[in-house]
């Protein structure tokens, strides 16, 4: 049985940062990822990473922007930690070799981003996530004696000992199909978000909510699951992302009449209001008939100087050219709000600890919560790094402190049985896995998106519950061992359905409008009743709801305008 002090599941930014932080404490670390680490979805974070590092900027300003952005649902103690530690983290990355953009003096340069009162976004062209992640992977290779990499290993279940503590994980080696029970004193879930539950989405095919579902299934609480971000600028149909950096560089949003409609919705911040605000504005324009016939509005990047576009927005020049057939330096590109980010997730404290001892979570899988009802652009990379590092350090400290226990073989046998069950379903016995995924994605995008109401969410929940039943008899074509992606897809479907059910239940429960949750039947924010987190716990009858307080330190909720 492979044994490590600390086991990290997921090798995007949060996972890699956690592994490096744990290794720094001198413990043995294993990092498991269902894809090669550099394929992880942190790659897609284009625009940058926030930190109050410029003279004249302050962590308090960054914190306030984040809190306001969260529509006051973010926990202010956690936000304080994140924004205070941000500058040091940026410098750490710079020292490791990230090729951050420089100003003319050769110092770190910044760009403007949405919802921020200062230009505090550090960036590498528009490949910031990729650039940071590849540098962290360089470090993983450098420290390969302390950090064992399990690349293309797919995790299916967590192991919990008789004291209720997490002590390992069952993982399938994708290359040969062998199932392994890993033993660890601490396990960190850093598996990214659940964007694939919606269709279309900006998220990669791998973003199926694995970590959230695995934690939920062993009894960890989930939090803020109703808070799903729709990004204001995604390509219609395919859902590809156009970075907020475009608007940071000065691009305009126009409706079909050529009006810069943000004047109506956010006269001060205009295109750089919070994402939920901009997405709602766009959707309103589209719904009220001022969009284009293809259900979009336009993003006009031609107002940005061409040299600057080539230098700072090169990636989206390529996206426009290759995926929309549009030269963004010459003509506006059609965009619409699209599923983008999971603000909610596994409930953790500021050191990544979940309700289950030994189980940690970080990054998009986790909900600390620093994003509350709406995440600010360029805060996601920061979240992954700060809380990845803190989780890694605390997980290592725990590993040094405790004896650890051997996971029972039972969990491995259960997982073998689960796979045998999927393999045993005869071709044509039920629906195809892909059909169920499509129905799920389209339902969620129609009913649990920018604008929601009780009837719609209820309908979506009923569909999800039906699909859960159908998934039990869904069949696959591939029954082999080597790279059986078909089987992994069936397991992922189970993860996605758990995520979807939790989002529907929480969205139905929150009878107000806050951040990304906009209820047309409850259009106002209601601090008296709903300034609280919705927590969910798995029971035989579905998710059980409880509440937890929002931590307020020094910023009392105010009306939110941009």
């Amino acid at each position, binding site marked *: 049985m492979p044994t490590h002090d600390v086991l990290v599941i997921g090798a995007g930014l949060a996972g890699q940062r956690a592994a490096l932080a744990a290794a720094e404490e001198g413990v043995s670390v294993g990092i498991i990822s269902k894809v090669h680490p550099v394929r*992880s979805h942190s790659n897609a974070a284009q625009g940058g990473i926030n930190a109050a590092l410029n003279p004249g900027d302050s962590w308090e300003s960054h914190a306030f922007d984040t809190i306001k952005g969260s529509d006051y649902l973010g926990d202010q103690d956690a936000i304080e930690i994140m924004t205070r530690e941000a500058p040091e983290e940026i410098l750490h990355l710079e020292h490791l*070799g990230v090729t951050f953009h420089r100003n003319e003096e050769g110092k770190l340069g910044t760009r403007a981003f949405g919802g921020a009162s200062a230009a505090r976004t550090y960036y590498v062209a528009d490949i910031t996530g990729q650039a940071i992640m590849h540098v962290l992977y360089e470090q993983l290779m450098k420290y390969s004696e302390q950090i064992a990499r399990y690349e293309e290993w797919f995790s299916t279940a967590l192991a919990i000992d008789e004291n209720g503590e997490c002590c390992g994980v069952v993982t399938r080696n994708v290359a040969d199909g062998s199932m392994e029970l890993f033993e660890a004193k601490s396990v960190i879930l850093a598996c990214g978000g659940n964007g694939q539950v919606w269709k279309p989405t900006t998220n990669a095919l791998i973003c199926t909510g694995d970590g959230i579902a695995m934690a939920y299934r062993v009894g960890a609480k989930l939090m803020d699951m109703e808070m799903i971000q729709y990004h204001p600028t995604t390509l219609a149909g395919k859902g590809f992302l156009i970075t907020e950096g475009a608007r940071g560089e000065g691009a305009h949003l126009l409706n079909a009449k050529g009006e810069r409609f943000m004047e109506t919705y956010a006269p001060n911040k205009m295109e750089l209001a919070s994402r939920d605000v901009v997405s709602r504005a766009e959707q309103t324009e589209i719904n009220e008939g001022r969009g284009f016939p293809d259900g979009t509005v336009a993003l006009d990047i031609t107002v940005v100087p061409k040299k600057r576009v080539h230098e700072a927005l090169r990636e989206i020049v390529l996206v426009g050219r290759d995926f929309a057939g549009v030269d963004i330096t010459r003509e506006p590109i059609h965009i619409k709000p699209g599923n983008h980010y999971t603000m909610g997730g596994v409930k953790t404290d500021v050191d990544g600890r979940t309700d289950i001892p030994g189980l940690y979570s970080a990054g998009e899988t986790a909900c600390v919560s620093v994003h509350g009802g709406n995440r600010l652009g360029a805060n996601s990379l920061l979240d992954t790094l700060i809380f990845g590092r803190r989780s890694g350090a605390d997980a290592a400290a725990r590993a040094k402190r405790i004896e650890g226990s051997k996971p029972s073989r039972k969990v491995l046998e259960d997982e073998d049985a689960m796979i045998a069950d999927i393999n045993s379903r005869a071709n044509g016995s039920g629906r195809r896995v892909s059909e169920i995924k499509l129905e799920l994605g389209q339902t969620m995008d129609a009913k649990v998106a920018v604008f929601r109401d009780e009837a719609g969410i209820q309908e979506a929940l009923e569909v999800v519950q039906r699909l859960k039943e159908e998934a039990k008899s869904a069949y696959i074509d591939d029954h*082999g061992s*080597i*790279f059986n*992606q078909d089987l992994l897809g069936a397991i992922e479907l189970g993860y996605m359905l758990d995520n979807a059910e939790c989002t529907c239940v929480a969205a139905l429960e929150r009878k107000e409008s806050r951040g990304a949750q906009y209820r047309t039947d409850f259009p106002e924010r209601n601090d008296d009743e709903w300034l609280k987190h919705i927590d969910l716990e798995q029971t035989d009858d579905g998710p059980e709801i409880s509440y937890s307080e929002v931590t307020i330190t020094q910023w009392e909720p105010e009306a939110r305008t941009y």
Partner: protein
Amino acid sequence: MADYKIKVRRFQPESGEGPYWEEFNVDLEPSLSVLDSLLQVKDGEDGSLAVRCSCRAAICGSCGMKINGQSGLGCKTQIGEAQEQANKMAAATGVTAAEASSPIGAQAPEQSHLVRAAGQEEAGAGRTAATTEVAAPIVIEPMGNMPVVKDLITDMESTHWTKFRRVTPWLLPHGEAPEREYIVDPESMLDITQSMACIQCGACVSSCLSMEADPDFIGPAALAKAYRFVGDPRDAETKERLHDLAEDPHGIYDCTHCFSCIDACPKDVAPMDQIMRLRRKAGEEGIEDSNSGHSHEMAFVKIIEKKGTLDESGLLQESFAPGIKGKLKPSKRAIKEMLGSIPTAIRGIKTGKMRSLPKLIPGVHHKLPGGAQDDVKAIYKHAEEHNEEFNLYIKGDEGELAELEAEDAFEEKAGAQANEEASS
């Protein structure tokens, strides 16, 4: 929506069978990708079709594959364009991409009968396609230069990643890190950002002709990565890195300048350019590598400048014993190399590749006639006057930018005219 036929080179390792071709009919918008067509098959028809993929947007680098023989990303190649390309190939050669690709099956000789059968079958279809303009199938294969694991999935660990680790791919700064950031030239960061844009998809490795000849060649992706550190002013081991890469017989001088990697790269990293930068820097460091790589390169430059065309025999001599002009002092190794090249020369004569026997005698090779030589000199002069690095992150596409500048100038002029008109 449109109908397409894709022809996929499949390999199911647990079936006990060798690789085989399978055709699928798909129905999708021309603007959707080749990857989308594969996913349509996977979702609707055959879930066992194996292909790595994740982001669908040319960011994650998972779906490297060969499409109509060309290495690239499945998600970045539009199916409509792939169809046009397949048709063009069929029309131009009378051979479909499907036929052209068949010999690759020869990698698994025990299965050659299978491939032959497929090839013969296609030959008829291909000719029909060329004459009646029936769409030729779009051919999809796993990447080259790598063992195939299953269908379109290759073993990148044993080929790409092992070599990647070979170049010490992490920053090696000296001394304590500064309290704040390293202060560096802003252009230097943009410069290496081109290498940082690499997504490790392997398309360049797949297309690399040098690697086909020398499987130990470090390769375009790993060397592009190496430049990311050599070009980084924060790295303190630039010299050591350059010596290492120049001295390795499978290092920077193993690249034959074929441009395949530049064509294949979906992110405009231009790996060959990065290799040339490494060579230039190695030259600037005065590294006379034991492969004579640097002197070989200099010999090329010198001979072309002098004669306009390549004098092969002179090249050999110049490469191993630079500075002839009557003072020929070949080293022992040079003599060995020159003697060693005799069989190659004989082969060249026998096969008719080397037609002019006097060419074998150093110094006999003629110059270009008339003004042609002046044109060559002018090219050299232009290159010397424009001795600057070309980097996409700094300047954008060269042609594109020139066009933009012209357009801006035109707009300014038009604007000025309008103003004049308005004022008059």
